[in-house]
């Protein structure tokens, strides 16, 4: 069976559209709200759902995602429950690709074989393991192949040509370009520098290239989509979830806010 990620890019290409990836943390702010948020994201315009696995020590994340992980852990989320969220999502959605993003320790403690078996069973299509560079992925290589779960790699402003070729050879589905030198949700990328980098990467790979870290408004997305295959939005959505939690909003109001935000991004893209 074709991986949903590949199928999605084929469809987007046909419609001449760019990809919008929505990132949320599993279990943020709690299991039931998270379930409703994740289930609604495709309706609001997300082409891909990226779900963060909370970790106590998220080295590559800024304050927004750090706090979101802490809220989720406090609410009792773990990988088993994260898989339940995805299982539930798949009951009504067979098409939208689901990507899990996280750090290696929680996955390792869950048990690698079991992790990949359940990924396949519940319909996880891709994985981004932040702290598992190509040098260290021998531990999961056999499993990603056996269970047809794509290992999606990060390319960053510090990645040189030599590494780029190593990375694009071992990445599947798409390449995730980290637009800034830094952590999530902090700096803003310069569009002109970004463009140069993306064009350079595209010369070295046939994979679609999506851009993430520091993207939070419709204008940016519009500009970036002129040269990239799409954008990943994370901290900006999570900020809305955090506001809701602080303001004690109903889940309906939270969903409405996320819907308004994403529809603005979608418009014209």
């Amino acid at each position: 069976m074709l991986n949903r990620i590949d199928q999605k890019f084929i469809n987007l290409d046909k419609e001449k559209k760019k990809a919008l990836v929505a990132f949320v943390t599993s279990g943020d702010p709690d299991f039931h709200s998270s379930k409703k948020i994740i289930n609604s994201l495709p309706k609001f315009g997300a082409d891909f759902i990226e779900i963060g696995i909370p970790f106590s020590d998220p080295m590559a994340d800024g304050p927004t995602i750090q706090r979101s992980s802490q809220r989720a852990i406090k609410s009792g989320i773990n990988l088993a429950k994260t898989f339940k969220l995805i299982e539930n999502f798949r009951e009504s959605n067979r098409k939208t690709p689901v990507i899990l993003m996280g750090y290696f320790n929680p996955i390792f403690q869950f048990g690698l074989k079991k992790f990949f078996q359940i990924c396949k069973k519940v319909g996880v299509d891709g994985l981004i393991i932040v702290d598992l560079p190509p040098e260290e992925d021998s531990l999961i290589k056999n499993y990603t192949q056996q269970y047809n779960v794509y290992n999606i790699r990060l390319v960053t402003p510090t990645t040189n040509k030599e590494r780029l070729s190593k990375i694009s050879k071992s990445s599947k589905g798409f390449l995730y370009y980290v637009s800034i030198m830094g952590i999530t949700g902090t700096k803003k990328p310069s569009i002109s520098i970004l463009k140069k980098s993306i064009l350079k990467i595209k010369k070295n790979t046939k994979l679609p290239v999506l851009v993430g870290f520091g993207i939070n408004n419709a204008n940016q997305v519009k500009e970036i989509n002129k040269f990239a295959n799409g954008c990943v939005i994370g901290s900006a959505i999570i900020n809305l979830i955090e506001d809701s939690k602080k303001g004690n909003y109903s889940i309906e109001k939270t969903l409405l806010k996320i819907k308004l935000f994403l529809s603005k991004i979608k418009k014209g893209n």
Partner: protein
Amino acid sequence: MLKRVDSQKFKEFNFQDFPDKNGRFGKFGGRFVAETLMPLLLDVEKEYEKAKKSAKFLNEIDYYFKNYVGRPSPLYFAERLSKKLNGAKIYFKRDELNHTGAHKINNCIGQVLLAKRMGKKRIVAETGAGQHGVATATVCALFNLKCIVYMGETDIKRQAPNVFKMKLLGADIISVKSGTATLKDAMNEALRDWVSNVNDTFYVIGTVAGPHPYPMMVRDFQSIIGKEAKQQILQLEKRLPNYLVACIGGGSNALGLFYPFLNDDVEIIGVEAGGKGVKSGKHAASISKGKPGFLHGNHTFLLQNKDGQIEDAHSISAGLDYPGIGPEHAWLKEIGRISYVNATDKEALEAFKLCTKLEGIIPALEPAHALSFLLKNKRKFSKKSLIIMNMCGRGDKDIYSIAEHLGMKI
């Protein structure tokens, strides 16, 4: 508790061959970091390999060790304490006499000289007890480099004298409130800073942890302790010691002493912080009570829950309050070369008091853990036992918190 290590078993190992080229000690170690950091780490490794072979670099380190740090540190026969140990002879390797009061500066001299070679202008560091922070700030003052120290909010409160010293030395101290606001979170923040400022910044890690090449590099810089100790004991006693003992936070003072002896027929003991007791859940005994996992760029033993979330460590000594341990220790534990034990807060305090009264040496709370192990196990030693303990820090930084524990006012 003390198993006789079968030295025959290790004849086939050459401990000098580790880590391998991927930074592995057996299955432990490695480079588990985000892509942004990978090229940097490869660069640090390349530059370190070059520097290691440069006579100029090595001479420079020697110069500052001798004239600035005050090396070699004495190997001192602690006669009155020895009497308490069934007549065993206990020697202190006195790294507490170093400039800035602990072993930490050995590593800082090495790493900051490397950073200078690489043309870096800005140094970041994490600190728990503040000893590594003070040492880094000191060396940065010496070499006129900008210094940013990340320190957990909780630690800032309990290590006030060191915070003040760092400020005097011109460092910026950033209070870390994320996570549990202790050493592990300070390390996360320092790594985040490094990812955000890769071009001009060098991260000086304070212990034998972090991604490759740090565990190797820090060990190499600290192993001056063991090299000197070996020469000194051979001169004083005409033989190798029977035992080496050191306390373990991340494990840098311990490995510094142990490393040059790993191939020898010497019994080696690392003492972790047992906090309120290893059964209480409030301790920092990552080897005794942790499980292998991944944190701060390496594979090692970690205190964590069943979901793989890292747990809070606890120790009376801020310097031992880390939920992990250097990957080389994880491996040495796995193959059985070193015995790892622990001492509680209370036991460390007792040893602290005894050492102060009997030897006139006010130890830091960290090495007090090592000493407490010796006192607890005195029956195991005989007149023939020759012991070297790493007195890796002095207690000046701890007097306020000790006064509090003893119910006294300063």
